[in-house]
């Protein structure tokens, strides 16, 4: 069955189907129950599964993750919602010192298949702490997996695959695209696992790697480049830890040019890691230095400035053009 659904609904459906398939799956978070979440992602789940499985928690992120770890020791699979990107930091200790390390600490005796959903990214005109892209903090921590869907179909399937995974998984959800509709094939999982990349648009002259909310920006830039006679390949990275480097490297070896796009600040961002690995493995294929396009190395600005902070198609196109100047 194929349905046309907004990303938020596709995630909700993924959660519903995972809960139907396994009664150890729980949902925990602030306002996820009666309200259905501030973005309505969990809408309807409270009615179907009740407050015992769709748990409205106290307003304490550290303990949302901490109790999820304790529940995992008893065989539960908690799916935790952090309401906004900027609110994950009170839980940072539990995520990085505890959740990420528990399987390793116990030498494999205890698995902690906790999923943390985090709506992230900007362009929604919000107040401070509601528009950030903190993915690099988590990709840097061994023991965590970090993924981010950009389409409705991926939103459904990556949600389900995250829940089925035996490791802790953080799912960064592109909140500005929550209401973007796309076809969801409810019967067939995508060819790629949740931890692999996908070529979103094939091309020959340059590669653009993007994820989450910037995939559509990259596709837009690729369309503009085509008007200029340049064929740009767009890779939707999908998984940020692990990174599917073989897909990226194969592409760059063909095109010779790479632009990495993310909303997070460029300095210390994941683009630097990708650039380093591509340099190591594609040195003789590269026609130009790897270009990075991202947020400024400033705190996220007030909303009236955010369009200047966020990478848009023009900035991506500018970087693509720059990579032809060598």
């Amino acid at each position, binding site marked *: 069955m194929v349905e046309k659904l907004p990303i938020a609904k596709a995630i909700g459906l993924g959660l519903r189907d995972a809960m139907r398939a396994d009664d150890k799956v729980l949902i925990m978070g602030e306002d996820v129950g009666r309200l259905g979440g501030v973005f309505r992602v969990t809408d309807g789940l409270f009615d179907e599964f009740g407050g*015992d499985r769709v748990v409205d*928690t*106290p307003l*304490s992120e*550290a*303990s949302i*993750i*901490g*109790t*999820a*770890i*304790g*529940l*995992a*020791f*008893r*065989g*539960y699979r908690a799916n935790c919602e952090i309401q906004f990107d900027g609110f994950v930091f*009170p839980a940072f*200790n*539990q995520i990085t*010192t*505890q959740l990420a*390390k*528990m*399987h*390793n*600490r*116990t*030498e*494999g*005796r*205890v*698995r902690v*298949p906790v999923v943390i959903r985090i709506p992230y990214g900007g362009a929604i005109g919000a107040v401070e702490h509601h528009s950030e892209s903190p993915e690099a903090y988590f990709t840097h921590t*061994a*023991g965590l*997996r970090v993924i981010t869907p950009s389409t409705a179909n991926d939103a459904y399937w990556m949600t389900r695959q995250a829940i089925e*995974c*035996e*490791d802790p998984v953080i799912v960064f959800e592109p909140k500005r695209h929550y209401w973007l509709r796309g076809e969801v094939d409810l019967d067939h999982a995508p060819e790629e696992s949740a931890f692999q990349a996908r070529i979103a648009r094939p091309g020959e002259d340059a590669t653009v790697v993007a994820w989450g909310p910037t995939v559509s920006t990259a596709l837009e830039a690729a369309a503009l480049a085509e008007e200029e006679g340049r064929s740009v390949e767009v890779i939707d990275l999908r998984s940020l*830890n*692990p*990174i*599917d*480097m073989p897909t990226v490297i194969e592409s760059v070896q063909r095109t010779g040019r790479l632009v990495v796009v993310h909303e997070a600040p460029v300095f210390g961002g994941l683009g630097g890691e990708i650039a380093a690995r591509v340099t190591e493995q594609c040195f003789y294929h590269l026609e130009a230095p790897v270009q990075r396009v991202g947020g400024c190395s400033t705190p996220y600005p007030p909303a009236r400035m955010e369009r200047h902070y966020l990478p848009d198609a023009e900035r991506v196109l500018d970087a693509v053009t720059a990579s032809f100047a060598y």
Partner: protein
Amino acid sequence: MTVFRTSIPQAPQEEPTLRLLEADGTRHPHEELDAAIADVTAEQMRGFYRDMVMIRAADLEATNLQRQGQLGLWASALGQEGAQIGAGHACRPHDYLVPTYREHGIAWARGIEPWRLLEMFRGVSHLGWDPKALKTHPYMIVLGSQVPQGVGYAMGIKRDGLVDTGDPDKDTAVLTLFGDGASSEGEVSEGFTWAASFQTPTVFFTQNNQWAISVPTSVQTRVPLAQRSRGWGIPSARVDGNDVLGVLAATRIAMDAARSGGGPRFIEAVTYRMAAHTTSDDATRYRPSEEEESWRQKDPIKRLGAHLDSLDEIDDDFVKSCEAEGHDLAMELHHHIHALPDPDPREMFEYVYAEPHPLIEEERAQFEAFQAQFEEDE
């Protein structure tokens, strides 16, 4: 209810300290506490005495092993044996215990052999036991972090229908431990909130050992710690932590309440960290030796020994046999640690993830290739 209180005295410092055994071994009656340990025989009390002697012997030997370079660090629990053996024995095999890193008496009561504790302090592994099999959470080093995890485990117990079944083999509770220092961590307060909101089968147990490394309890709290939880509606009690019988009784009452659906309880066991914070610490820089001496007079082992003596239930032969067993245990630790090999370094890649991870595989292969060069050279 006289043991667990819900209100704070007009003058907070008037919080009573429950005690069955005076420092000199004098036994006080207490209706509720006595009822909770009415089944405890002299034989069992001798068992507690032996437990405390054994864990102290292991503790002293661990310090020796650190001084000999066999351990990287040791966090001594000297002086806290009464609180730990009392609380540990208040738990049933199917209860779950959530310790910090200074809970060697708790570990002993759970049947975790002392040499397993040394693995972590020697640096051959992060954890020496199976938390699920032994129903004992990993030692927690980032203090406070264990508290929400213990509450989460208790939420799972409740969800599994293992509270208030009336069947003592099923009803389960979680003993979550933290110290006076960790009581200031936000996650401890959050743990109170969650346990109260979800009425989890949780007993919070603080050993107030007076010192958080060099900082006295007075910096952590202006009122007796026992009163902390009452604002959350969690009944609490302060008990003399060097009185193994009082601790056992109070913890049994709390665990029974939690197992039978009465919700969380909080116990402050007042004790003293007789040694420095760890083998890397120097307690002479921040506390007077007179203070240590005054607490030596309240020793939990001597106290129980004096009580057993007053009952004519202990003799020199028993005391000597305990000491001999303690000596044997120390020797066993000494030999065991020398026979504990360094792990294969490839193990660091082994358990990072439960499922295959390409970056880990890649780095493991690189590591092995790099190591192989040197093997060829040899």
